[in-house]
């Protein structure tokens, strides 16, 4: 499992140096070369696409795109959701009521469809995808963190801090947040995989990452029409998604079992 995660992170970090070819500019004479064990050469180990771009290089750069988007999206959604969850759980009352209604509504919306609409109205870009991911994720965090805070705030050390005259902000940041940290971290790890899937799906539909950026979903879309003559164009990027998400899900499960076994499968 760790091996898989490392195998994902290294190309993502080092794509700029390690990738054998330029991911965006191809050479037309090299177009539609098959992978190495299917009549191709080591020059293009996983073959080339219609524009003569090296699939392997594009997958490596695509790892960078996928990882940075999901991390940014989870950070944004996580921070927003955690902040609102802390407020709802700590202050209760009206703030809680409003935030939780918003959570209910967000959860009742078909999020992928909204993502589509947003992507198409604002236009596909990195920022749009991150906004979409934030929108899809925040409610989940808000709900979990709130539940956690509700139990933490009844504990002794919170009462002691309050008696000692600590401000609400200080209590939240110094006493409650650290105790809710495990839940937040586990939730984030569990989400990376599904965010990558979401991004890939949007890119596949042409409403995610704009061309010619090497995104896995886009590459699958590009290869779709050529599946009969050049199967490798669509196959390998999809395989990369599958293995990545597989490894990340395993990591997430493992983190949950270790850090927060009470958290149910979501």
């Amino acid at each position, binding site marked *: 499992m760790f091996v898989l995660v490392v195998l994902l992170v290294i190309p993502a970090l080092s794509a700029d140096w390690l990738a054998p070819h330029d991911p965006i500019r191809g050479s037309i004479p090299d177009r539609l070369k098959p992978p190495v064990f299917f009549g191709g050469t080591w020059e293009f180990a996983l073959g080339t696409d219609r524009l003569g771009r090296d699939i392997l290089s594009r997958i490596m750069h695509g790892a960078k795109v996928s990882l940075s988007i999901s991390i940014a999206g989870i950070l944004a959604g996580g921070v927003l959701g955690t902040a609102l969850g802390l407020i709802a759980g700590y202050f209760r009352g009206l703030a809680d009521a409003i935030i939780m209604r918003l959570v209910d509504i967000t959860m009742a919306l078909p999020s992928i469809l909204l993502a589509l609409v947003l992507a198409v109205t604002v236009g596909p870009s990195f920022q749009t995808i991150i906004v979409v991911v934030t929108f899809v994720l925040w409610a989940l965090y808000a709900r979990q963190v709130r539940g956690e805070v509700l139990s933490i705030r009844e504990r002794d050390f919170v009462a002691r801090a309050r008696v000692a005259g600590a401000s609400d902000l200080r209590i939240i940041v110094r006493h409650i947040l650290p105790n809710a940290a495990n839940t937040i971290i586990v939730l984030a790890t569990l989400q990376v995989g599904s965010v990558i899937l979401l991004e890939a799906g949007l890119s596949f539909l042409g409403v995610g990452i704009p061309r010619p950026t090497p995104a896995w979903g886009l590459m699958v879309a590009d290869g779709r029409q050529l599946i009969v003559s050049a199967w490798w164009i669509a196959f390998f990027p999809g395989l990369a998604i599958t293995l990545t*998400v597989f490894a990340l899900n395993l990591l997430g499960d493992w983190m949950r079992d270790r850090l927060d076994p009470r958290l149910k*499968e979501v």
Partner: protein
Amino acid sequence: MKRYLVIRSLQSLLALLAISVIAFAMSHLTGSPVDAMLPDDAGPEEAARLTKLWGLDLPLYEQYFVFLGNALQGNFGDSIKWQGQTAFGLVLERLPATIQLGGFAIIVSTIIALPVGVLAAVYKDTPFDSAGKLVALLGQAMPNFWLGIVLIWIFAVHLHWLPTSGRGGFSHMILPAIAMGWFQVAAFMRLTRSAMLEVLDSEYIKLARIKGVPERRVIWVHALKNAAIAPLTYFGVIAGSIFTGSVVIETVFAWPGTGLLAIDAIRGRDFPVIQAVVVTFAGVFIVANLIVDTLYAYLDPRIRYQ
């Protein structure tokens, strides 16, 4: 019970309202719809006429109420891309295809996931359980559009067993249903398994065995009815995701349903149709969740008798 359902229905209404606001805002975020609809050679007086006709000179909130009033009557205006058809008419025309495929996928994935999840719990830590876990993890990792393409490549292109795309007989449904359902099978199976494990460990299961209830009945009646509650709540999510999943799957398999309609409309910037699709999908999603919650209350007497 009544109170619970009333509250749930109100929440659903609220969510629908939120959707309508979003759908309404959508057409205004991208500039005036008039520009999008006018032919390029139209003059300013033509634009003014349309603005007046569609009430675009009214204050925004009034425009919203007009939109809401029309939407409630199923009137989202005429399609821009498909000349001569109303947006809602198009959605209704395509809906049966989506429901057919989605319904088939749901039924098949439930038929597979429920027993496998139950048996994985009963035969915990055996090779059967491990195999189930692997299939589930793979299912949750594979992007459905890629799975669809690979399925076409293997079963349609290479083996010629099944058609590549389009809507026709039963054989046309098999590949898209697998591509759509695999993720659901995985999620449903894991949920069922973990719920069953918890229930099988409980005292009332012990008591059922003490009573002399045969093991098969202990598992499929006593345990399952309790364990089914957790996966059932997830069922609403599944029903919803089948619809949103249809956008991707119908694109891959050229299945002429609402999902394909949505993506075509989005590409053609056909806002009336997009609005109609979004509101319809949201409506179906919300109603599905409402039905699930009602069923949930029916299954769990602790809620039913509140």
